[in-house]
């Protein structure tokens, strides 16, 4: 069980940083300062931060587009995130891809592609290489509930189980695939029911409780690192925004959204830290000030950074 105040406040910091960066991105989108799509993981902060916060530097994670906190706690800076959204030359994909389609392999962050679940077998392949070389590394692969209906998800989970690969699959189940609710996606009640069929240990956890996420993820990561093969974790949460910033979410029932807001992972964790005497009001205000300042600096730097030239398009199609 987590108890050390420094660790816990650090988790809250990254959850809040996730939200602050996305709040800024949504604002910029409304102001017309960003081109392209905007996807947020509002309300999902406990999952990315909870899982990725347990990884070692040479472990690898493939997050989803709702897991900004995972990118940040694994080492990507808010400045890099803004550079990516702005399509800048010095961003993680050097302007070649946009929004959350980013990664930084030197930090152990793989990038997802829009074809949901494609990363599921790819993560198994990275895990295969780690196992083959006798490296005690772990690979984590996140996906949304929607991805669990694709063939690549099923094939990837099966391969990971058959070859007992050191990989942890984490489903960010926010109960909507774009506009399609969970009950229209599958005829079983829980995603873990699908995963268990492939022969790996599964856990169902409250995705809005960062400590609960960490507890099951810690077990799964230790199992993978110890040679015990893959695991699957379903983190149930609420999608509080539309699929993207262009989507007003009107098809989601009001009581679903209200339940999600009531169970806000950041508010809940802030209260818990307060109740444990680990973070008083002054401490929380200090944390918020620090984050606001960091976001401001990151945005200012990103906005001043150069765009790529049009002709940069032609560079880097093939590796030398």
């Amino acid at each position, binding site marked *: 069980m987590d108890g050390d105040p420094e660790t816990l406040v650090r988790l809250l910091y990254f959850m809040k940083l996730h939200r602050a960066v996305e709040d800024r991105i949504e604002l910029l989108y409304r102001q017309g300062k960003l081109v392209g799509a905007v996807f947020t993981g509002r309300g999902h902060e406990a999952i990315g931060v909870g899982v990725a916060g347990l990884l070692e530097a040479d472990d690898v994670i493939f997050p989803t587009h709702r897991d900004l906190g995972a990118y940040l706690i694994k080492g990507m800076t808010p400045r890099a995130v803004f550079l990516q959204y702005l399509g800048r030359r010095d961003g993680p994909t050097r302007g070649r891809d946009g929004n959350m389609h980013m990664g930084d392999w030197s930090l152990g962050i*793989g*990038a997802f592609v829009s074809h949901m679940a*494609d990363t599921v077998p790819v993560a198994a*392949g*990275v895990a295969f290489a780690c196992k*083959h070389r006798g490296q005690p590394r772990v690979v984590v692969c996140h996906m949304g509930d929607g991805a669990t209906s694709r063939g690549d998800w099923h094939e*990837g989970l099966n391969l990971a189980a058959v070859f007992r690969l050191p990989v942890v699959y984490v489903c960010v189940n926010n109960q909507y695939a774009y506009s399609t609710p969970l009950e229209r996606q599958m005829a079983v009640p829980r995603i873990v029911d699908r995963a268990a069929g492939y022969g790996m240990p599964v856990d169902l956890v409250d995705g809005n409780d960062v400590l609960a996420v960490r507890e099951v993820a810690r077990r799964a990561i230790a199992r993978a690192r110890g040679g015990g093969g893959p695991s699957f974790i379903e983190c149930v949460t609420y999608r509080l925004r539309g699929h993207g910033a262009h989507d007003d979410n009107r098809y989601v029932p009001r009581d679903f959204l209200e339940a999600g807001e009531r169970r806000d992972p950041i508010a809940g964790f802030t209260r818990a830290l307060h109740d444990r005497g680990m973070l008083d009001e002054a401490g929380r205000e200090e944390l918020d000030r620090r984050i606001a300042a960091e976001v401001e600096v990151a945005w200012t730097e990103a906005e001043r950074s150069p765009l790529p030239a049009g002709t940069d398009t032609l560079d880097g199609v*093939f590796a030398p």
Partner: protein
Amino acid sequence: MVITYLEAIRQALREELQRDPDVFLLGEDIGVFGGAFKVTEGLLEEFGPERVIDMPLAEAGFTGMAIGAAMAGMRPVVEFQFSDFISCAFDQITNFAAKTYYRLGVPVPVVFRAPCGGGVHGGPFHSGNPESYFLHTPGLKVVAPATATDAKGLLKAAIRDNNPVLYLEHKYLYRRVREDVVEGDWITPLGRATVRKPGSEVTLLTYGAMVHVALDAVSQMGERGGGVEVIDLRSLVPLDRETIRESARKTGKVLIVHEAQRTGGFAGELTAVVNEEAFEFLDGPVRRVAAPDTPVPFSPPMEAFYLPSAATVAEAATGLLDY
């Protein structure tokens, strides 16, 4: 030593497995069974189940797995039992393997071995030539050896390349062509065509099994065949534009032959290349011989009709000579 095209592929795999511990093979029935065509026969015994790995029937899944292993620095060689089954892995190849270096700067050194082509009574699902689907995918290299020497040399080059490479090995050639192949480290560089038979009146551009059909056509043409220059492209991406340019400028007439279907086939692109590189030098239209726009049929007379033959190629070449 004289070996077959199939043995040349196996020799390349064996030598690369010996040379580099990061090379490994995966695919359906490649281990215990030695592969549907026995290309990998003996390799499981020699290199063990950690490096010659039988896969479940999950082309998208094991292609994704190979991509991940390649991103982590290994050099997987995937065998698709038949190139027709590569359609199941289309998304992983075109969206993940081909775009990862461009987006992330992470190389994906993976080879997709795809036994392709007709003439073996395989019918609509075991005879295809899928190159056109993939030629339109930036970030992916595509090669098609015609000889045992190039089967070995191109495969070794593909394995050592830092990009995903689609390696189209023609099933009809497996045991039908053989030659004295250089032992040890023979590399055929990607992106270099070769002149199989020189000539100065008509350029014939082709690749894969059609190289042999073209050479048969030339010998059927007797003395007139002497004017035909047969170029084996070997590598479709990257393409050796220089060799095409030189030959087309010299002869002024170009015939393109491929086994894949006509519409959207590589001949269309090659025609445009000839126009871009040599239009002022042309003395006639660029023509093509290709399969008709149908699935590959099963029944022997239908398949014989479907496949470009030496007779149809000779007729087209003669027509151009006379133009």
